[in-house]
């Protein structure tokens, strides 16, 4: 087993393809035949995306290597891409290789993606891999197959039309030749004429001829065997000879952004003098430690005495919504009307029924089980980083900020998988910057891993959101008015380590204890505010953004799995349900009646009906059959989406009215992501999206004092546990006539709405603030019993 461990020789990475193969061969990589077609060089490898050789290498041993910058985050995309390619090339999955991945002797894969090898098709995010890059992979496969058949025709003296292919072996006229024999690692030198081909789009293989794509359980995930035997090489397992272990030293949670709560005022280096070999690294306001032994570095980071600047400008727990309303009252939050159709105020006035509500959703964190890790080896003329970033190419660009005078062509990033990502790009960039800073300062390779509190406390959180919404229906249950106002902040794109270096690196200076200047806020969610409803085009519809500026203190925020969807669906799905109840209609029937009638509307109807059918849905008016007793049950439905796919979920829940605890008993989730390549793999993604969505809806909240985030571990940021995990029934609405869409996020969007609507069905009470913790549930029930309306922030 030791032979499979990636012991990297520093020399092997300096220059040239031969050295690369030698270096990675030590790690057990099956890279034979690769070097001649895609030789990485220290000048950087910038392939021409129109050339098939930039995407695919046909190796001499008749294996096929696909090279894209998309990475594996446990979503199975490496399997999915190779399955698409194998389908077009008529090869077997056992022949397929991904990027620079390392293959164990039993054939299982360890993902490696090297910026000096792959085509740059951008990072992974927004469920864009199969939808955006899948058609390019298919086009490359189609082009390669045609070129290979042409070569085979010449070699075998048989016309192309008389050739057949199986497992990458071409047969015709009683003779055979393999792809590997035809090309043997050399270039095909063929241009891709149609850059993207959708499934079945000529000249791609007709869908009717598919062997594995869309077929259940014909292809299993290639990364799973190594993951269950313990041989999988995560970025955490990478070792470089002579490397030191590093840790960052920061408060255990971030303060207000733009920072200056996180500036060291005084550092007592003698406080770690008892730890052998531990050394403090301070560059600007960045503070870290290094040591030869990992546990020494951990202890040094813990024990180093630092006095931090205290800048208590955060609103503190429980005050966030009032803070937003106060800023608005003082005129510090602008009002931006986005979409507007019809006369909303008039339509509300003349509506048969009007409902309204305010819905608040707290900050949440990505919080993977394994904190981010990066190994950096910074030399005078080049740098190599091993990282679990979702975007290898952008990381190279970002690192030029901290590694100047090195330029992008002198920086190489090797992706190794980390722990689940969920859009956690900021932390991966932050750790890479930190490792680079530590390596540059010490002149040695440094392995930096975040501690739990660094990961929990320093991510760019899913932003908090406060929505005020009003909507009206006519006497027949048709929505006639929709008026949405959302307070939300924008994302921040500078990463903490670089920020701490100071103004020389493009970060704002942070020395004075002042209220930071405003940073532009975010926009109201356009994706999850019932755009599928007829009211948007035909009625009166208004979307207003209240971009919350940073003045007065907010956190770093960014994209988290299905960005903005949960925050918006909390409000939108409940308003839809309130309209259904006001119309005395079944929640499903109300939605179906108000959908657009175009293909988009039909696809929404498809997932709503599929989820309802799986759940054995029987029409009723939500909340019309309230149970008695301490523990009551309810059922709710919602639809919502991200990345173009369609998702609907039905949730069955149990509420203990005394303790306030909600248990989600079962979820029926339907998804239409166009042509679904690998149904089992996608059902697993739907499962994960749902369970994580339940966790976010019920318990996840970043808490904070006036100075810092205080959610620093699994006690202070609890996530869903095994005992409370729901049963799950996935339903894939397979649409082979439609392009593939994203599958990593959709069911995480509607679940919060389905739970909230189920809660109303069980109790007759609306939930206005998420997560729905027991304390909040008790408070909502008590307020309803006392007849007090709940409006967050007032």
């Amino acid at each position, binding site marked *: 087993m030791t032979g499979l461990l990636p012991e990297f020789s520093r020399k092997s990475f300096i220059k040239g393809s031969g050295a690369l193969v030698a270096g990675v061969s030590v790690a057990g990589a099956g890279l034979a035949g690769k070097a001649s077609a895609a030789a990485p060089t220290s000048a950087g490898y910038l392939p021409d995306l129109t050339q098939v050789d930039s995407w695919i290498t046909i190796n001499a041993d008749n294996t096929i290597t696909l090279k894209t910058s998309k990475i594996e985050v446990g979503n199975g995309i490496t399997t999915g891409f190779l399955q698409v390619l194998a389908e077009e090339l008529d090869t077997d999955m056992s022949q397929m290789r991904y990027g620079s991945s390392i293959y164990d002797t039993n054939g299982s894969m360890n993902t490696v993606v090297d910026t000096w090898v792959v085509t740059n098709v951008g990072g992974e995010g927004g469920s864009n891999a199969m939808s955006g890059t899948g058609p390019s992979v298919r086009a490359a496969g189609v082009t390669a197959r045609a070129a290979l058949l042409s070569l085979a025709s010449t070699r075998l003296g048989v016309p192309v039309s008389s050739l057949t292919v199986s497992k990458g072996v071409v047969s015709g006229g009683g003779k055979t030749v393999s792809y590997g024999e035809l090309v043997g690692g050399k270039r095909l030198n063929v241009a891709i004429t149609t850059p993207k081909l959708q499934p079945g789009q000529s000249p791609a293989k007709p869908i009717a001829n598919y062997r594995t794509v869309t077929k259940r359980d014909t292809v299993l995930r290639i*990364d799973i065997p190594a993951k*269950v035997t*313990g041989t999988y*090489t995560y970025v*955490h397992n990478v070792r470089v000879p002579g490397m030191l272990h590093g840790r960052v030293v920061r408060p255990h949670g971030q303060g207000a952004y733009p920072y200056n709560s996180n500036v060291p005022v005084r550092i007592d280096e003698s406080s770690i003098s008892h730890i052998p070999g531990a050394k403090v690294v301070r560059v600007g306001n960045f503070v870290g430690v290094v040591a030869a032994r990992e*546990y020494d570095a951990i202890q040094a980071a813990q024990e180093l005495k630092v006095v931090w600047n205290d800048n208590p400008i955060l609103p503190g727990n429980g005050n966030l919504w009032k803070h937003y309303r106060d800023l608005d009252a003082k005129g510090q939050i602008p009002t931006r009307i986005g979409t507007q159709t019809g006369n909303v105020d008039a339509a509300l006035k003349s509506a048969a029924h009007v409902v309204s509500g305010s819905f608040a959703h707290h900050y949440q964190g990505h919080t993977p*089980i394994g904190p981010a890790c990066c190994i950096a080896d910074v030399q005078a003329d080049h740098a190599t980083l091993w990282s679990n970033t979702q975007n290898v190419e952008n990381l190279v660009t970002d690192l030029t900020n901290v590694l100047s005078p090195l330029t992008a062509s002198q920086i190489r990033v090797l992706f190794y998988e980390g722990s689940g990502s969920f859009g956690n790009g900021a932390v991966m960039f932050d750790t890479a910057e930190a490792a680079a800073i530590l390596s540059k300062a010490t002149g040695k390779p440094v392995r930096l891993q975040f501690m739990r509190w660094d990961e929990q406390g320093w991510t760019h959180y899913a932003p908090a959101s406060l929505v005020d919404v009003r909507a009206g229906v006519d006497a027949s249950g048709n929505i006639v008015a929709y008026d949405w106002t959302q307070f939300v902040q924008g994302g921040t794109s500078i990463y903490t380590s670089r920020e701490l270096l100071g103004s020389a690196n493009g970060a704002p200076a942070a020395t004075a204890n002042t209220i930071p200047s405003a940073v532009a806020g975010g926009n109201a969610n356009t994706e999850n505010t019932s755009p599928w409803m007829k009211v948007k085009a035909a009625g009166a519809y208004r979307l207003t953004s209240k971009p919350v500026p940073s003045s007065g203190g907010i956190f770093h925020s960014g994209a988290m799995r299905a960005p903005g969807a949960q925050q918006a669906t909390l409000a939108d799905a409940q308003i839809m349900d309130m309209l259904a109840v006001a119309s005395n209609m079944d929640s499903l029937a109300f939605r179906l009646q108000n959908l657009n009638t175009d293909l988009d509307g039909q696809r929404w109807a498809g997932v709503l009906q599929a989820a309802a059918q799986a759940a054995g849905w029987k029409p009723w008016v939500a909340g019309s059959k309230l149970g008695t007793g301490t523990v009551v049950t309810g059922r709710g439905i919602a639809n919502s989406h991200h990345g173009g796919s369609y998702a609907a979920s039905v949730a069955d829940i149990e509420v203990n009215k005394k303790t306030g605890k909600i248990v989600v008993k079962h979820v029926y989730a339907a998804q239409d992501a166009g042509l679904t390549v690998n149904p089992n793999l996608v059902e697993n993604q739907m499962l994960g999206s749902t369970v994580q969505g339940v966790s976010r809806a019920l318990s996840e909240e970043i808490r904070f004092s006036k100075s810092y985030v205080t959610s620093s571990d699994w006690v202070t940021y609890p996530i869903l*546990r*095994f005992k409370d995990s729901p049963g799950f029934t996935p339903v894939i609405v397979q649409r082979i006539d439609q392009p593939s869409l994203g599958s990593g996020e959709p069911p995480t969007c509607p679940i919060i709405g389905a739970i909230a609507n189920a809660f109303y069905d069980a109790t007759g009470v609306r939930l206005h603030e998420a997560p729905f913790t027991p304390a909040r549930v008790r408070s909502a029930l008590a307020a309803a019993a006392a007849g007090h309306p709940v409006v967050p922030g007032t």
Partner: protein
Amino acid sequence: MASKLKIKVNGLVHSVTASLDTPLLYVLHNELHLHGPRFGCGLAQCGACSVLLDGKEIRSCVTPVAAVSGRGITTLEGLPALWAKERGTTAASPALHPLQQAWIDVQVPHCGYCQNGMMIQAADLLSTTKNPTEDQIRTAMNGHLCRCGTYPRILTAIKQAAAAMAKGGK
């Protein structure tokens, strides 16, 4: 102060150099180069670092290496040999423990980072409860966190492994 220690891992005795209070996890990862036990929290809250100590699940991130001296540690890598021993076979170890086979059959992992602890805890459970009920599985597994949301498939896989083990394994 670093000391020379002997620890028994997956049936082999290893000499390692570490201070006595170093958590076992760092010795397993950095000295023995094992990938199974993983750092998650360092606080015994998540279970990513779990190993079996004389057959019982412990959190290696908070267990000082000195505390395991003279006792047997099994990591994820050692589960196939453990299964062979439990069955009393003297032949070469099977490639996979029935739990690992079930994890593949059910296609459990996403990122897989926490799955080490899940399989270790499940091995502990099945060593004492051959045919656990769903409630027993949920209770036994409750101290292990998964962020990708794989709990329902883990539940299926444990039931499947239990059935396979009852029949003597695959």
